[in-house]
């Protein structure tokens, strides 16, 4: 067996690291945990002060189905929620839409109206449980419905904690749940951030994400650069609106993958914090430390999991979760071992949560902040990742910024070429995958427990219930509320206040997305590859 001499991103690794391999003035590049440049973590005591949030991404079927899965997770010790929405909800279609039928309730929960949002959180106090929403193109609509659902529970906006993904730029790179062209999409994201800066002091209105580009195939260095490029683009747009950087920057949050190359991933997460601190202070003149204090959620990597010998995925996920913890994550999702086949079964999702709990409570790694600080290798690798990522950020700047690089197809090409290179390395055996290209056992049936089974009746039932709710609402009030959204969209006013009124009046997600479609148009991606 030979061991690769480079990291997953292609950085050469020496057999031994010594003190001389670390550049001078390390103490300045590190600081203390909770202090600039935040390399060692955003908080002084890290997990001794507060353990990371265990947040398994979950949702399928109707709001009641997803609510039952949420309660299943909370009963087993999960500390917060993370909502998966189905593709029609992510793309602004009600369950009754002809384009939606095959996808209703498949990869997440179907939400058409504010009443669905109320049902989704039935019996879950929103002023106590923080909620993460993986939603982008329809993020303003989903946030409006969530705020009204919280209002119906009697929860004050100031008490709501959670995160809205709302990073639409990265949807043009990966996963592709865009609806409108890039420019109005960016504007809607910024409307949400601007609204939250005044009204939602505990809520993260965006999670700037390198994760999806990484899962789509780019390497750790590109992941850093693409996330920072997007963070710069949002910040530029908000500053151009006249907002002070310090007024919104403390609530910007981030999302990175944690994949298999343990030390490269830890170094990446440490480098991310230092990169953002430098961008915040050097580019945007941040004057408050929280403006340059990067906090992040880490999702483990689904693309590293294999269909062959699926129980091996438990081991892979454990290493990845450990990497996120050693990298100082604020919240973590661990993949289910059966995700190459289906959305996770109850058994798989319980094991994912238990993985987090065992690392937190039994491994001892949570006892002290940034335990790898000072490691010759980890510090040298952190510096190298930062340097290489800065060079790529310069390339994005030279292309005119993240949005222009997307329009020119530069970022998409980074991702596609890297994905193809990786796949060829697996095919030719250069990149070992245990159970796939080494130690494969031909003909063995995969050992899987009871698999998740989708309910084919969800689409019809959910569409019928929405039809009843539309019938029951005050049509005139609702029409006026929808028209007010259209006016705000056309006039450039912040769409959040009228969206909240429209959600209250019972407007459907599809109706509201259609308003934006008619004002902004729809984006059709050039099929670049």
């Amino acid at each position, binding site marked *: 067996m030979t061991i690769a001499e480079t990291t997953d991103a292609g950085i050469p690794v020496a057999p031994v690291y010594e003190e001389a391999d670390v550049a001078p003035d390390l103490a300045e590049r590190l600081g203390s945990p909770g202090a600039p440049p935040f390399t060692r973590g955003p908080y002084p005591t890290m997990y001794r002060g507060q353990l990371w949030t265990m947040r398994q991404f979950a949702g399928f079927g109707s709001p009641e189905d997803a609510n039952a899965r949420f309660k299943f997770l909370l009963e087993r010790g999960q500390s917060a929620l993370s909502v998966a929405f189905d593709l029609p909800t992510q793309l602004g279609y009600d369950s009754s839409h002809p384009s939606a039928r095959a996808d209703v309730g498949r990869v997440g929960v179907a939400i058409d109206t504010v009443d669905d949002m109320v049902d989704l959180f039935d019996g879950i106090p929103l002023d106590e449980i923080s909620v993460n929403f993986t939603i982008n193109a329809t993020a303003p609509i989903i946030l409006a419905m969530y705020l009204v659902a919280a209002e119906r529970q009697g929860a004050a906006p100031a008490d709501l904690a959670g995160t809205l993904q709302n990073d639409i730029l990265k949807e043009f790179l990966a996963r592709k749940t865009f609806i409108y062209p890039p420019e109005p999409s960016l504007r809607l994201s910024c409307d949400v951030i601007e609204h939250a800066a005044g009204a939602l002091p505990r809520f993260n209105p965006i999670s700037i994400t390198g994760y999806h580009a990484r899962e789509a195939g780019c390497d750790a260095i590109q992941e850093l650069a693409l996330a920072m490029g997007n963070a710069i683009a949002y910040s530029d747009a908000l500053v151009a609106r006249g907002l002070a950087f310090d007024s919104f920057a403390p609530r910007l949050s981030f999302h990175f993958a944690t994949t298999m190359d343990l030390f490269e991933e830890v170094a990446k997460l440490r480098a991310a914090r230092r990169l953002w601190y430098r961008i915040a202070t050097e580019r945007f003149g941040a004057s408050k430390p929280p403006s340059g204090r990067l906090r992040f959620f880490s999702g483990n990597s689904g693309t590293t999991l294999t269909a062959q010998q699926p129980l091996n995925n438990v081991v892979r996920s454990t290493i990845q979760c450990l990497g996120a913890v050693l990298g100082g994550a604020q919240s973590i999702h661990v993949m289910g071992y059966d995700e*190459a086949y289906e959305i996770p079964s109850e058994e798989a999702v319980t094991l994912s949560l238990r993985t987090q709990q065992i690392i937190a409570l039994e491994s001892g790694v949570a006892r002290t902040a940034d335990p790898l600080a000072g490691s010759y290798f980890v510090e040298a690798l952190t510096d190298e990742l930062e340097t290489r990522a800065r060079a790529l950020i310069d390339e994005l700047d030279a292309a005119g910024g993240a949005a222009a690089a997307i329009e020119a197809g530069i970022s998409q090409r980074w991702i596609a070429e890297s*994905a193809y290179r990786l796949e060829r390395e697996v095919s030719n055996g250069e990149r070992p995958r245990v159970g796939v290209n080494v130690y494969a056992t031909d003909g063995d049936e995969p050992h899987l427990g009871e698999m998740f089974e989708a309910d084919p009746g969800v689409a019809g039932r959910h569409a019928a219930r929405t039809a009843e709710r539309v019938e029951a609402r005050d049509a005139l009030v609702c029409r006026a509320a929808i028209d007010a959204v259209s006016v705000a969209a056309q006039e450039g006013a912040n769409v959040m206040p009228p969206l909240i009124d429209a959600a209250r009046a019972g407007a459907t997600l599809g109706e509201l997305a259609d308003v934006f479609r008619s004002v902004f148009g729809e984006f059709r991606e050039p099929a670049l590859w």
Partner: protein
Amino acid sequence: MSPTRVVLAKPGLDGHDRGIKVVAMALRDAGAEVVYLGLRRTPEEIWHAAVEEDADVVGVSVLSGAHVALAGELLAERARVGADTPLVVGGTVPAEDADRLRAMGVEAVHPVGTSLPDVVASVLSLGARERTA
């Protein structure tokens, strides 16, 4: 013999396009002529392109779990336009669904875990069969 002509597309709403782009590049490097139509393509658009491009094989990728429903719509549209180009489906397809898709009339199914060379070989052999038919 002229190169195999392949039309690739993502039907339905799923935007996970890493796999289909990798397959497109691998087929291109294996000498095929590849037209990738992109995301959220309807059955009408896909078969229209297949006819226009004189495709030997049509390949679609679905990672949302909606593969059975979407393959059904694609096969119905293929019959409606009177085309007989073989349809290949890839994605997160459990074994029993792969059998079901084949029984419905999908010529080849490549579930997650299929190696890239196997996908390429399958598409090229289907293409060769079409061209000699």
